[in-house]
């Protein structure tokens, strides 16, 4: 009973904070680019935490997570812009109200998650037969096919599948059905709320019999199967769950307040998948809180370098030395951090442990 009251208290407190952010973030953080960065950090947390289910917990090496995020983003953007256009659901001239977002966000982001998880099933199925690097190639291939299919669409196509693909805007990106921008009604409440909920959900999965079975499977597939853990089932469901989470992340990315209102194929290139893997490995494969830390680290390091690029002194320095390309240097810093980490802490920041909470499974 006391336990129940305490959890209810936590839920209530979280809701209050989220509502506060929903209405107060604008006043709290006047700079919209910083707001955007904070929301983006939450999106990255979702990307990282969901990838951790497949790469960390299930031990399958997927390097095509961007594909699932992208499918979620496009699906949500399409659904959102059509819902927005329909007169009954139109939030009116002054943008989306919070009440409206309760209808629009679950529908559009939910659609993105469902479609992404269907593709997760599609990509998860070969994972039964393929291992290690072969599976990695399949996931990479999937993500690149998705991206290139949209990017290389013939804009002048008039009918059929190519017309449908071309309506997504090709390389220029999708800006809603009417080309007026994707409606941005997912406020901080939704974005931060989803990140917290997803972190919490994967935490619970990890510390359940299900997570235990995944761990066993990763350590010794033959032994795990010999006690009834069906590798097929667990791996495919992991893929579907990870894709579902990625779809939510993508959907919120496409429709988040202070976002661009534009979904472009290049957001979901290999670089993005690579960033996601970096987050997971940096934090510690299999650790939920590690995935969160990794995501925050990657988001803010990248942006920090971008901010540094804007500083006058650095600009001058760059002007004097044209070879000093900080965007390229970003990768060098990444690599340096990763190499240092792999030497000092081969298991990532946290290894498989968690920052706080139970060392073991459900406390009995």
């Amino acid at each position: 009973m006391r336990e129940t009251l305490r959890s209810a208290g936590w839920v209530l407190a979280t809701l209050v904070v989220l509502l506060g952010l929903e209405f107060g973030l604008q006043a709290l953080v006047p700079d919209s680019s910083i707001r955007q960065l904070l929301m983006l950090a939450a999106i990255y947390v979702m990307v990282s935490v969901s990838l951790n289910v497949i790469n960390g917990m299930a031990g399958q090496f997927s390097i095509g997570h961007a594909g699932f995020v992208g499918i979620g983003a496009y699906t949500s953007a399409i659904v959102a812009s059509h819902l927005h256009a329909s007169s009954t659901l139109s939030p009116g001239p002054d943008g989306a109200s919070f009440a409206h977002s309760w209808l629009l966000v679950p529908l559009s982001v939910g659609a993105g998650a469902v479609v992404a998880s269907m593709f997760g099933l599609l990509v998860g199925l070969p994972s039964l037969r393929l291992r290690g690097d072969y599976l990695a190639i399949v996931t990479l291939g999937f993500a690149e096919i998705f991206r290139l299919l949209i990017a290389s669409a013939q804009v002048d196509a008039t009918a059929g599948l190519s017309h449908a693909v071309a309506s997504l805007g090709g390389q220029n990106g999708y800006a809603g059905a009417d080309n007026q921008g994707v409606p941005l009604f997912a406020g901080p409440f939704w974005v931060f709320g989803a990140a917290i909920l997803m972190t919490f959900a994967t935490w619970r999965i990890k510390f359940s019999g299900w997570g235990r079975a995944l761990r066993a499977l990763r350590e010794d597939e033959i032994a795990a199967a010999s006690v009834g853990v069906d590798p097929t089932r667990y791996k495919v469901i992991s893929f579907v769950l990870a894709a579902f989470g990625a779809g939510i992340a993508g959907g919120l990315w496409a429709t988040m307040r202070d976002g661009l209102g534009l979904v472009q194929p290049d957001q979901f290139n290999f670089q993005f998948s690579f960033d996601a893997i970096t987050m997971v490995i940096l934090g510690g494969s299999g650790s939920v809180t590690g995935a969160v830390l990794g995501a925050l680290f990657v988001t803010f390091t990248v942006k920090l370098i971008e901010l540094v690029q804007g500083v006058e002194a650095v600009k001058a320095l760059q002007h004097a030395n044209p070879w000093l390309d900080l965007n390229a240097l970003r990768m060098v810093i990444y690599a340096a951090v990763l190499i240092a980490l792999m030497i000092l802490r081969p298991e990532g920041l946290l290894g498989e442990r968690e920052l706080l909470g139970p060392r073991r499974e459900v406390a009995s």
Partner: protein
Amino acid sequence: MSQLDLSDVNKSFGGIKAVIRVSFRVPSGSIFGLIGPNGAGKTTVFNLVTGVYRADEGSIRLDGVDIVAKKPAQIAAAGVARTFQNIRLFSQMSVIDNVLVACETKRRSGLEGALLRSASFLDEEKMLRAKALELLDVFELGRLANEPSTSLSYGDQRRLEIARAMMLGPKLLLLDEPAAGMNYAEAEGLKKQIRWLRERFDLTVVLVEHNMQVVMSVCEEIHVLDHGETIAHGRPDEIRQHPKVLAAYLGESA
């Protein structure tokens, strides 16, 4: 208790015939020995029964149901548990977690239960944990429940593997060289445990073992393989004097 029937089972790996027309019946509730010199095909038979390999020909029946086409996890769920010749524990996991992995087939609450931490999920988890501890106590591992499994001694690791197999709630238990690396006292203890397990859990036990002292004293029936072929079958006292068995183990002149 389950009855296991193999009839005319063949298995080759490339040009090597590992198992050639092997047929035998393990009577329900018996302790059955499967012996033979190194490379006789004993472990291959275990791998065929548990679905790790698929038999080229022949049938393997568990209580009359053919399991040749089934996958390892399905066969495990049908009540066949095993241990491994070269111990395969989940080395990064604690002792009790190793055992708990084996209860996933029995678990009724699904992922949604774990997500919501429903009362039924928590009750079930508690119940399974208690059952795992009980099993660990049987193998005198209860006090080590929260230790990493790698920290266990060799004999304890072998016993933990049996405990893990038993958590599955099997009707047929396949033990692959459980006495390997055990000293005399441990092997004596193992003999008692195998008999006790059979009585306590209504098991059928198949034992692959090189320790003849263990095999001869606990098995009621013994099947002998050599180079993948059956060379003898009978009670321990018959096997002990069987000329072909003596020849296989000691050389032709015997």
